[in-house]
C-alpha cells in the first residue's frame, strides 16, 4: 500500500495535466535526448561494472591473489561512498572533470560492488562437486570455468547488473555534480528552478516507465531453472587456482582499481578536510548535521524494518504469489528513483497529509517507500533460518505462540534482520534527492550540506561532511561485506 500510494498519486497528477500537455512534453526532442543519454549511461556503466565485478570476484574468491582478503574488503567498500561524494572528490581533484564519460567513470567506480558482492558470494557458495565432475569428464580448468562456474553464477551476475542499471537510471548526485543532463537532473531542475510541476511530473513518469521496461526485459530474458542450488552434500570450500606469473600483475590491477575507487576520494577528502576544519564554527555545524543524519536515518530505518517484519515473515511462511513477487519487488527499491518518490511525496504531503508535511515523519515515510523491499527481502531471508517445523515442535512442547516467537523465532532471525536494518540504514544515509525535497526547512543532514556546498564549489566546506558520511556508512558496509563470506578461506589446488 505504502509503496503504491505516491506512485498512484503521480499517475493521477500526470493525468490531470491533460493529454496534450503530456504528449507535448513526452514527445519533445529534449525528452528523447534525455532518454537516450540516460540509457546510454546505464548501458556503459553496467558493462564496465560487470567486467570489473566478475573479474574482481573471481580473483578474490578463486585464485591465490596476494592479500586477497584485503582486496575483498577494498572491493566492497565503494558501497559506502555515495556517488555525489565520489563526484565531488573527482571534480575537486581533476580540472574540467565533467560530461558523459566523467559520470560513467564515477558511477562505475561507485556501483561495481553491486556486481562484485553477489558474484563473490555465489562463487564462494557454488557447489565444487559440479566443477569436479566437469574436470573428471576431461574438461580443462578454463573450459570448466566458462562452461560450469560462470553458468552457476549467471543469476548473481544478472541480478547485480540489473541493480547497477537501475541505480544509474535513478542516480541524481553524481550526474548533477559532473553536470550531465539526465532524466533525474532535468526533473530536479524543472521542479526547483521553474517550479514547473507538470514538467517534473511528466518526466518522472517517463523515468518510472523506463525502469519498469528494464525490469520487465530482465524478467523475460531470465530462463526457467536458472538458479543453481547446491545439490546436497556437505559444503566444501571451492578450490582456488594458482595464478603463477600473473599473480603480481593481477594484484596490481586490483590495486589500481582500489586506488581509483577509494584512493581518489580519500586523498581528495583529506586534502580539503585539512583546509576545511580550520574554519571557525564549522565543527558545530558538522556535528549538528551529523546528529540530524543519524536521527532521520534511525527514524527511517525503524519505520522501514517495523513495516517489513510482518510482510517478510508472511512472505517467507506463505509460499505463493506473494513470495514469488518478492524477488521482483526487491529491485523496486533501486528502480524507483528517490527523486520521483520525493517529488510525489511533496505533492502528497501538501495536498493530502498536510500535518506530516515538513516533518521528519514524511521523510521517514519516503525512506520506507524506497527501502521497504530491501528490508522485506532481508526479513524473508532471515525467516528461512527458522523453518516452521521448529515452531511446530516448540508448540507441541506446551509453549504458547508469543513465547515461541520470543524464544525460537526471534533469536534465530535476529542476525538476518540486523543485517537488513544495516542495509536500510546505509541506504538512508546515502540518500540525497528525497532528503533534499522532503527535509523540514532549516534541517540539514550530512548529505544535503555536502550537496549545497558542492553546488557552489565550496569544496573545503563540503569536505568534513563527505568524510563523516563515508566514515559512518563504512560501518554497515563492512558488516555486510563480512556476511557475504568473501573472507572465507578456501583450499589451494
Amino acid at each position, binding site marked *: 500500500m505504502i509503496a503504491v500510494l505516491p506512485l498512484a498519486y503521480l499517475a493521477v497528477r500526470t493525468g490531470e495535466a491533460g493529454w496534450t500537455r503530456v504528449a507535448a512534453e513526452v514527445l519533445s526532442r529534449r525528452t528523447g535526448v534525455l532518454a537516450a543519454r540516460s540509457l546510454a549511461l546505464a548501458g556503459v556503466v553496467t558493462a564496465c561494472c560487470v567486467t570489473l565485478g566478475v573479474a574482481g570476484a573471481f580473483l578474490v574468491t578463486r585464485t591465490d591473489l596476494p592479500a586477497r582478503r584485503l582486496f575483498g574488503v577494498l572491493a566492497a567498500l565503494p558501497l559506502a561512498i555515495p556517488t555525489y561524494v565520489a563526484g565531488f572528490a573527482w571534480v575537486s581533484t581533476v580540472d574540467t572533470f565533467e560530461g558523459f564519460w566523467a559520470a560513467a567513470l564515477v558511477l562505475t567506480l561507485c556501483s561495481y560492488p553491486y556486481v562484485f558482492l553477489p558474484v563473490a558470494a555465489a562463487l564462494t557458495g557454488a557447489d565444487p562437486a559440479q566443477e569436479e565432475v566437469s574436470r573428471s569428464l576431461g574438461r580443462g580448468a578454463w573450459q570448466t570455468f566458462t562452461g560450469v562456474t560462470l553458468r552457476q553464477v549467471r543469476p548473481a551476475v544478472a541480478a547485480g547488473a540489473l541493480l547497477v542499471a537501475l541505480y544509474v537510471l535513478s542516480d541524481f548526485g553524481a550526474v548533477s555534480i559532473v553536470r550531465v543532463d539526465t532524466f533525474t537532473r532535468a526533473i530536479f531542475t524543472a521542479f526547483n528552478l521553474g517550479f514547473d510541476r507538470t514538467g517534473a511530473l511528466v518526466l518522472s513518469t517517463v523515468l518510472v516507465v523506463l525502469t519498469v521496461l528494464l525490469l520487465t526485459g530482465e524478467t523475460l530474458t531470465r530462463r526457467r531453472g536458472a538458479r543453481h542450488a547446491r545439490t546436497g552434500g556437505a559444503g566444501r570450500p571451492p578450490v582456488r587456482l594458482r595464478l603463477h606469473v600473473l599473480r603480481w600483475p593481477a594484484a596490481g590491477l586490483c590495486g589500481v582499481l582500489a586506488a581509483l575507487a577509494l584512493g581518489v576520494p580519500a586523498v581528495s577528502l583529506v586534502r580539503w578536510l585539512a583546509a576545511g576544519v580550520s574554519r571557525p564554527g564549522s565543527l558545530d555545524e558538522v556535528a549538528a548535521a551529523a546528529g540530524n543524519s543519524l536521527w532521520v536515518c534511525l527514524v527511517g530505518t525503524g519505520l522501514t524494518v517495523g513495516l517489513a517484519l510482518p510482510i517478510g515473515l508472511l512472505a517467507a511462511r506463505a509460499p505463493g504469489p506473494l513470495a514469488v513477487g518478492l524477488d521482483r519487488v526487491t529491485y523496486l527499491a533501486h528502480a524507483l528513483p528517490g527523486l520521483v518518490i520525493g517529488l510525489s511525496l511533496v505533492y502528497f504531503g501538501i495536498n493530502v497529509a498536510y500535518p506530516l508535511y515538513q516533518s521528519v515523519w514524511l521523510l521517514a515515510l519516503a525512506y520506507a517507500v524506497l527501502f521497504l523491499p530491501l528490508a522485506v527481502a532481508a526479513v524473508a531471508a532471515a525467516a528461512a533460518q527458522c523453518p516452521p517445523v521448529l515452531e*511446530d*515442535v*516448540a*508448540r*507441541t512442547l506446551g509453549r504458547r505462540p508469543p513465547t515461541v516467537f520470543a524464544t525460537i523465532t526471534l533469536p534465530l532471525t535476529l542476525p538476518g534482520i540486523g543485517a537488513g536494518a544495516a542495509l536500510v540504514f546505509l541506504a538512508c544515509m546515502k540518500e540525497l534527492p528525497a532528503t533534499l525535497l522532503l527535509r523540514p526547512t532549516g534541517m540539514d543532514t550530512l548529505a544535503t550540506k555536502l550537496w549545497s556546498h558542492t553546488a557552489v564549489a565550496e569544496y573545503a566546506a563540503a569536505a568534513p561532511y563527505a568524510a563523516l558520511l563515508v566514515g559512518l556508512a563504512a560501518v554497515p558496509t563492512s558488516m555486510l561485506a563480512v556476511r557475504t563470506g568473501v573472507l572465507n578461506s578456501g583450499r589451494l589446488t
Partner: protein
Amino acid sequence: MSELDVRNVSKAYGPVLAVDGVDLTVATGTLAAVLGPSGCGKTTLLRCIAGFEHVGAGEVRVGGRLVAGGGTHLAPHRRRVAIVPQEGALFPHLSVAGNVAYGLDRAGRRSERVAQVLSLVDLAGFEDRMPHQLSGGQQQRVALARALAPRPPLVLLDEPFSALDAGLRAELRRVVRAALRADGATAVLVTHDQGEALSMADQVAVMRAGRIVQCGPPADVYREPADAWVASFVGEAVLLPGLVASARAHTPLGELPVAGTSAGAATVFLRPEQLQVLPVNTACGVAATVLRHDFHGHDALLLVRLDDGHEVPARIFDPTMAAPEVGDRIAVRVRGTARAYPDPTNGAVDQ
C-alpha cells in the same frame, strides 16, 4: 485404557481427501506404527493429532480428553502431544540441555529430569554440546529426549530415522524403543519402512490412500495380511492365481491348504520363506529355473520361474551352502498354509 483414540477422522485439502475416515486406538504405554507409502496421508493424520491441522470430520481424544472434533480444536500447545520430526529439528541456538529443558516448567528445569531423559537415550554428559556438534543419530536422540522430558501423554514420531544410514537406524530403533518403554510413554510412529514398523511397534496400522486397511500386531499383519496389496507392501510376497475349493487351492505350485476365503477364483499368497528350494531331481515339488540371486548375507532371495511361466520369489536361509546360481534348474516345494483373497478377474486364466 487407551491414551489415543482417533474416531472416523477425515481431512480434505480442496477436493483431495488426504485422510478418509480413520479409526485408531493406542493403548497406554504401547507404540503403534502407522505404515504406508509416501502420500498415503499418514503425515496428515499425525498433524491432525498434534493439532497443526483442523480435522474435517471425526474426533481425536488424548488421555480421554477431546482435543479435536465436534467444534473443538485445542491449540497444539494445549494438547500435551510432543512430536519428534523427521530431521530432529533441534533449536540450533540452544545447547542440548537447553533443547531438552525447553518444554519443562521452572521446577522441571531445576529437577533431574533433563539428565534423566538424556541418560534414557544414552547421551548422559552431552548437556553442553550444541546441535551442530552432534551426529545425525545423536540429534535424533536429543529430539526424542526433548519430546519425552515434559512427560507428555503421547509422543508422535514422524519418520524419525529416515535420514539416517542403515546401521545407525537399527541401533537407534532399539535405543528409542527402550527409552519409550522405560519412560512408560505412549507413542505413534509414522513410517514407510515396513522393517521399522514390524520391529518397533506393538501394533501396526497399514494405511493406503487415506484409509487404514489393516490394524493389528506386527506378526498378524505380516502373516495374515488383509489383502494382496498389504501382503506385497509389508514384506516380499508370492502372489499366484488359484482356484479354491473346500480349503484347498489349485495353483501353479500345486494343490495347497489355504485359509481366508470361500470357494472360487482367488489370488493365493505365500511368503518367500514358505518356498523350500530343493534339487531338481526331487520327487516332490515343482520344477523351476533360477532367474536372479540377491545375496543378503544372512539369507538370500531367489527369483525363480516356474515351468508354466510364473515368476515367484523364494528365500533360502543358508546361502553359504551350495546355493543355486542363475540359470540352475531346481524344484520348489511349499511349506505351511497359504492365504487366498477372492479375485474373480483371474478366474479362467490358468486353471
